[in-house]
């Protein structure tokens, strides 16, 4: 189903199949100690007393007293402690590490640590706002005052857990005054900078190496920095190698997840039944500490109009702090919540008015030259009409809509969506300032030096290909090792669907330069730094302008059957059409398509994570249900070219696009089957039953 001639051999395939790839928990260092984390069992309170049992020789406690410089994990705000000091704010908040050579002894020590808490009143729900953002487009008051019809709906989404199969973990060791960390991470420089901040070390005394990573999906974007600061503090104190690997339940309970959200939408329609105004209020649950929630909120607000152009708009939102596990990055980063809201809204409005939903939505599709939600410009061609036609054709959408119109057990749904590629707004120029390096040795072997992490998405293979293809070299003449901050410049984090477009783009330029200035047998080095295309103008305070340099587009069609006895949903088929600019490696892009939609659809109907009074009810793979091979339906994906001038060979972002449309597609399919509106995901059998009024 994909063109193998347009795919490179995967660099790391053999080691992954044979089990010889060494993920962090596979690595052993002589004299290595183990660390386990002692955590708060309560949602909120003051630490009144800590009693540590007498420690055997070679066992240590590492806590806030051992912090060398700053006791916060460097992200954007300073509120996230490395170790709790005198208060705790969520179940699972780390208080200290216990470190030593024997795991059984560690367990005994931990069992005998007595911490006295004075519990205080926790906050849940959307009451305590920590970040407020908003923007306007056009004149929404006027639109509402002229409106012929006003429709208001509220949409809710739940937690989603990344559920990477390799739990989080890190291994570190000292070399003289230097500390090296090997971690299951997405962003070597995020980790390095967080550790530098925490320890106050000079720049050349912290080294971060990325080994093979067993899945991440955003869950290893910012969270590992917490582990890194704790581990580095411990290594600075104890001066021995230490390994810290999370158990699955621990991982599930304490690491970041997708933000639960509530979105209130109010649409103003004119007498032609066109949406002339939209007012959206977005609330996301940030958990106990802000982390990256402000940026998630930004991306969510910007995504509020989805694939449509709405001339008058007001989008406001808040990050609410609650005494639950801090939420954070997860593939899509605020967009999945919004694609669900806007797609369901644009499906519900025509249904309420007795109009054909497909025609209604097509009428509002964004076009080249339109202003975006933040009054930037859709500069590049948008080929959505062609993509939608293709999706309709390959899925038999229209015939099935007709056929299933009176069949409560079958339904089909189609979602339209986009994803802004790269960091939101001016992040690339003001914060990341990505740098890539190509080094050629005297044997004319070229080394690709970037901080991009291959966590399964295949960037080692695809970026490698960008370089050897641009330089017209045989693949073996180019080497792409796992990133080591001692060796690679900061090309930015492996997030935000930026790796091919931005890092790949820089590598393509560097490759061209090296090719053009090639001196055989001589050591050479080319550095290329990111320069934002001048047309991208962004006001971060007002959230106005071009939020992204480019957009990728997608259509997902999902067909379901709904069991009338049990309300269970079975996926019958999935069809997708994507515009990612240019497909560098088809096998890799189809892999992203299949994997992304599995997560996106499951977000819509299968994956349940609930918190009750700050306690997560699902904390392991038995209770947090992700799809098995039997749950997935066959997928068919079509890729269209629509080259972006500033991406390598025209490539835009892929990684997140393939997730963000899955939930609305399956929700619409379920809606069409049961002929009742779905306003909340996951649309579980329990919810379907409730919606049908069968309680």
């Amino acid at each position, binding site marked *: 189903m994909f063109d193998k001639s347009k795919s490179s051999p995967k660099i790391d395939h053999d080691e992954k199949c044979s089990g010889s790839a060494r993920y962090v*928990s596979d690595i052993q260092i002589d004299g290595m100690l*183990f660390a*386990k984390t002692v955590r708060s069992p309560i949602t909120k309170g003051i630490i009144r007393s800590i009693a540590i049992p007498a420690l055997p020789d070679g066992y240590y406690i590492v806590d806030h007293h051992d912090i060398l410089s700053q006791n916060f994990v460097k992200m954007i705000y300073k509120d996230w402690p490395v170790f709790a000091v005198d208060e705790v704010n969520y179940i699972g908040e780390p208080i200290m590490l216990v470190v030593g050579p024997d*795991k*059984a002894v560690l*367990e005994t020590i931990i069992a005998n640590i007595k911490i006295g808490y004075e519990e205080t009143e926790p906050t849940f729900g959307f009451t305590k706002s920590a970040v407020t953002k908003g923007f306007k487009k056009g004149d929404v008051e006027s639109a509402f005052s002229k409106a012929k019809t006003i429709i208001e709906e509220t949409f809710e989404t739940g937690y989603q857990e990344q559920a990477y199969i390799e739990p989080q973990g890190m291994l570190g060791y000292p070399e003289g005054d230097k500390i090296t960390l090997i971690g299951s991470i997405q962003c070597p420089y995020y980790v390095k900078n967080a550790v530098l901040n925490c320890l106050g070390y000079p720049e050349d005394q912290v080294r971060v190496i990325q080994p093979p990573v067993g899945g991440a999906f955003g869950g290893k974007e910012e969270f590992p920095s917490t582990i890194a600061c704790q581990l580095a503090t411990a290594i600075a104190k104890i001066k021995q190698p230490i390994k810290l*690997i999370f*158990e699955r339940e621990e991982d599930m309970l304490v690491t970041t997840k997708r933000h639960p959200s509530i979105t209130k939408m109010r649409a103003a329609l004119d007498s032609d039944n066109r949406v002339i105004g939209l007012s959206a209020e977005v609330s996301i649950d940030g958990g106990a500490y802000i982390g990256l929630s402000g940026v998630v909120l930004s991306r969510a607000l910007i995504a509020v109009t989805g694939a449509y152009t709405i001339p008058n708009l007001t989008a406001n939102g808040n990050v609410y702090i609650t005494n639950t596990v801090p939420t954070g990055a997860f593939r899509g980063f605020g967009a999945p919540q919004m694609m669900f809201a806007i797609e369901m809204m644009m499906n519900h409005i025509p249904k309420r008015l007795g109009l054909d939903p497909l025609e209604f939505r097509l009428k509002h599709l964004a076009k080249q030259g339109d202003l975006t939600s933040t009054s930037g410009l859709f500069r590049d061609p948008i080929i959505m009409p062609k993509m939608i036609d293709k999706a309709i054709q390959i899925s038999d959408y229209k015939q099935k809509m007709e056929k299933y119109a009176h069949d409560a057990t079958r339904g089909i749904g189609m979602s339209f969506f986009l994803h802004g590629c790269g960091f939101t707004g001016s992040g690339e120029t003001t914060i990341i300032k990505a740098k890539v390096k190509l080094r050629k040795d005297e044997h004319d072997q070229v080394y690709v030096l970037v901080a991009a992490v291959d966590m399964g998405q295949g960037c080692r293979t695809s970026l490698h290909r960008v370089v050897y293809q641009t330089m017209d070299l045989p693949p073996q003449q180019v080497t792409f090792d796992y990133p080591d901050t001692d060796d690679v410049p900061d090309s930015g984090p492996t997030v935000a669907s930026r790796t091919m477009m931005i890092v790949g783009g820089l590598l393509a330029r560097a490759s061209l330069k090296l090719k053009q200035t090639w001196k055989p047998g001589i050591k050479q080095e080319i550095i290329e730094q990111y320069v934002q295309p001048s047309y991208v103008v962004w006001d971060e305070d007002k959230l106005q302008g071009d939020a992204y340099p480019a957009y990728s587009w997608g259509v997902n069609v999902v067909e379901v059957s709904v069991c*009338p*006895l*049990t*309300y*269970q949903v*079975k996926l019958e088929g999935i069809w997708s059409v994507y515009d990612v600019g240019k497909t560098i490696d088809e096998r890799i892009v189809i892999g992203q398509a299949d994997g992304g939609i599995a997560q996106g659809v499951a977000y819509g109907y*299968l994956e*349940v994570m*609930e918190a009750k009074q700050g306690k997560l*009810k*699902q904390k392991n793979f*038995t*209770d947090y*249900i992700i*799809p*098995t*091979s*039997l*749950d997935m339906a066959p997928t068919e994906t079509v890729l269209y070219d629509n080259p972006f001038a500033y991406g390598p060979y025209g490539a835009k972002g892929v990684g997140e696009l393939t997730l963000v449309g899955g939930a609305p597609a399956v929700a619409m399919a379920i809606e069409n089957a049961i002929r009742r509106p779905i306003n909340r995901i996951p649309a579980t*059998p*329990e919810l379907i*039953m*409730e919606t049908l009024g*069968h*309680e």
Partner: protein
Amino acid sequence: MVRHIIPKTLQEALTYLSEGTFKIMAGGTDLMIQKRSTAGLPPKIGQDVIYLFNLAELRYVSRGDGYLKIGAMTPLEDIYHHPDTPELLKKVIYEMASPGIRHMATMAGNIGNASPAGDSLVALYVLDARIKLQSISGERILPISDVIIGVRKTIIRPDELIAEILIPVDNFNVIVWRKVGGRRADAISKVSFAALIKRNAEVIKDIRIAFGAVSPTVVRSRQIEAELNGKSITELRNMLPSILEKYATAIRPIDDQRSSAHYRRQVASNMLRHLIEKEI
């Protein structure tokens, strides 16, 4: 100092069981997880352990005296593949857990664990399975419903092991199994439903209905069944409201991390209604 005994024969096992108090390790698929510590450390079983999984004397599927006899340590996958295994039990095993688990899980483990959500138990109840408990002093054979008395509670004595499951060989016209889990494989049942019916033309000769995961133990009511036996299909359908009400009273579903009492109750009712209206 915890003792770990790996007996070579059944007799050796019974001797040990008569002399000490042991936790019986069958396949380990429940016990190893229930008692687990952290990665790298053995589980916290907290008492002497006796490993019976590989006892050849407890692994067989054979017919005799009108029963299908299953050795209690036979892995579920082997029970599934045996030609004499009743269809209902095959249907149940087919949807249980995963291949890796089915290669290790046993009836001994399922019964000993006595989980309220145990799928195979529902089949055993409705098949009128009898369980042979063996000790050094002899054996006793009891209906499964007498063996399991509560959540993870059985009447098995410390000196006994589960030796054999005896299922009366029989034929049914209608065999129904519905497992309602969170996904299509590897799922703990939210609610499960089994029914076996024998009829003679339009008259019900033998109707057996059981629900799983909606009560501390499998719900099967011989009292209700007695009122249904001997009735015609038409009569049964006319009795539907009272049948639904009687079973609604018999089940006690709860809210938990997997589902809600409401859902379990409604789905149980739906499946029962469908049986009476469409499947008998």
